[in-house]
């Protein structure tokens, strides 16, 4: 069954496909969280995934770097395939950055160590080069002066920007954001969205699970609607927010807009 395959509306249709999701399914016990999802993501696509809570958005994005194993189907990302061998999944994860809702910084390591750990341990980058990367990236996310602090000494917004810098230090080809602003105090949402927006403008291929409709409308090339484990709408933001495809989509839009 071709689950919920829908027409793609990629902004840059001529760029190569970097993620190809083929009819994936995932269950927790008897509850099916992902019910046959298929889609393709092209290089430089900025895709926002929206929908009601419990609809499978987070689970879906977490399958893309193998954090959630899938029960059926197949995912191809860059040159890698999921499900695959552990070593291959490890390689895949080094090319696909992920930012979590709750930051998940290493609380016992300084900001610098958080950012340099991946490059030095996983990519065998020299310490000097890793340090240079860390400082450059922290400047880029606007907290260059916090390099020797511990995450606990930073605000939520700053921590999330460190988490973004940590992911970027691996020089990933694709970035996954799993509700990056949902755990933040309202006044800190903007500073984090600003960073993500800049990243999108730089041409990074990104998937963003978000509840920030304004952000999705403004930054995304494509918007996915996920509910009940099905990816039922895949449209450019204008179409997505102006003309609902079905009742579920219309009901969601009426609540969030």
């Amino acid at each position, binding site marked *: 069954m071709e689950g919920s395959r829908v027409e793609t509306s990629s902004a840059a249709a001529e760029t190569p496909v970097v993620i190809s999701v083929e009819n994936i399914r995932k269950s927790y016990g008897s509850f099916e969280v992902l019910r046959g999802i298929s889609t393709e993501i092209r290089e430089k696509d900025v895709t926002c995934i929206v929908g009601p809570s419990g609809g499978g958005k987070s689970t879906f994005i977490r399958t893309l770097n193998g954090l959630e194993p899938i029960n059926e189907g197949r995912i191809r990302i860059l040159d890698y395939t999921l499900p695959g061998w552990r070593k291959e999944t490890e390689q895949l*994860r080094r090319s696909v950055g992920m930012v979590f809702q709750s930051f998940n910084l290493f609380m*016992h390591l300084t900001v610098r160590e958080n950012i340099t750990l991946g490059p030095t*341990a996983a990519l065998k980058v020299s310490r000097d080069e890793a340090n240079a990367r860390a400082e450059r990236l922290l400047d880029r996310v606007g907290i260059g002066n916090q390099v020797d602090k511990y995450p606990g000494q930073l605000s939520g917004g700053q921590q999330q920007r460190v988490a973004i810098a940590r992911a970027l230090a*691996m020089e990933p080809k694709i970035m996954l954001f799993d509700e990056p602003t949902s755990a933040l105090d309202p006044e800190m949402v903007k500073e984090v969205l600003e960073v993500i927006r800049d990243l999108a403008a730089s041409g990074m291929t990104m998937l963003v699970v978000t509840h920030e409709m304004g952000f999705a409308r403004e930054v995304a090339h494509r918007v996915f609607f996920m509910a009940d484990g099905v990816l039922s709408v895949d449209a450019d933001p204008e179409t997505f927010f102006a003309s609902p495809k079905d009742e579920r989509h219309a009901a969601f839009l009426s609540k969030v807009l």
Partner: protein
Amino acid sequence: MFALEEQVEEKRSPWGLVAVMATLALIGVAAWKYVNWQLLASLDFSVVWDYRLALAKGLMVTLYLTAIAGLCGLTAGTVLAALSQSRLALVRWVVVAYVELFRNTPILVQLIWIHFALPVFTGWNTTALQSGTIAIALQASAYFSEIVRGGIESVPKGQWEAAYALGLPARTTWGRVILPPALKSMIPALVNLTISFFKASSILSVLQVSELMTITNRISNAVYKPIELFTAAAVIYFVLGYILSQLTLRLERAAK
């Protein structure tokens, strides 16, 4: 908070003081009537001083055994705890069997197995001290692994996910991400367990391993002053155990 303060106030009421005085008076009367003061006066603690060198040597062996328990326990226990998270059911099963076997059989029996049964099967004879060392290391690794496992499980899932998402090698995930915070949260439990082994090492006296309890017993048999010597041994165990637990409290506060 308020309830606690009220209780403190109550204790300061005159009736509390009267109760304490009455209890003390009762104990005093009982002591006067029943305690054999003659015998008590005849206790001669100078014998402890006379045998101070032998006792010190015994204490050294006890401390050596405690160090073995602490070091082997922590290293082997960490390895066992990591293996208990293995993806392979067989590995997990073997670890569980090992841990449960050593936790749920008396150390006395383990000592007998190692000292008397092992040579029968392997032809490998061990001295009492070697047997004691092996037994205490095996048992400590089983007990420590449970604490380390608890410590590992106390590390939030998000830390694992962040390590996975970066594609960190397993070595780095364990060594830099999971174990440091896990060990920190385990410090009190680890020290408590080490103190338990400090005291429990006295069981090795059944093999005549020359640790503090064996030495105490030997001197006591030679000079027939059991009350003085065993009391002295208890004081040594208490003082060192108490110092160790106070040091941990300090360490814990410093870590925070």
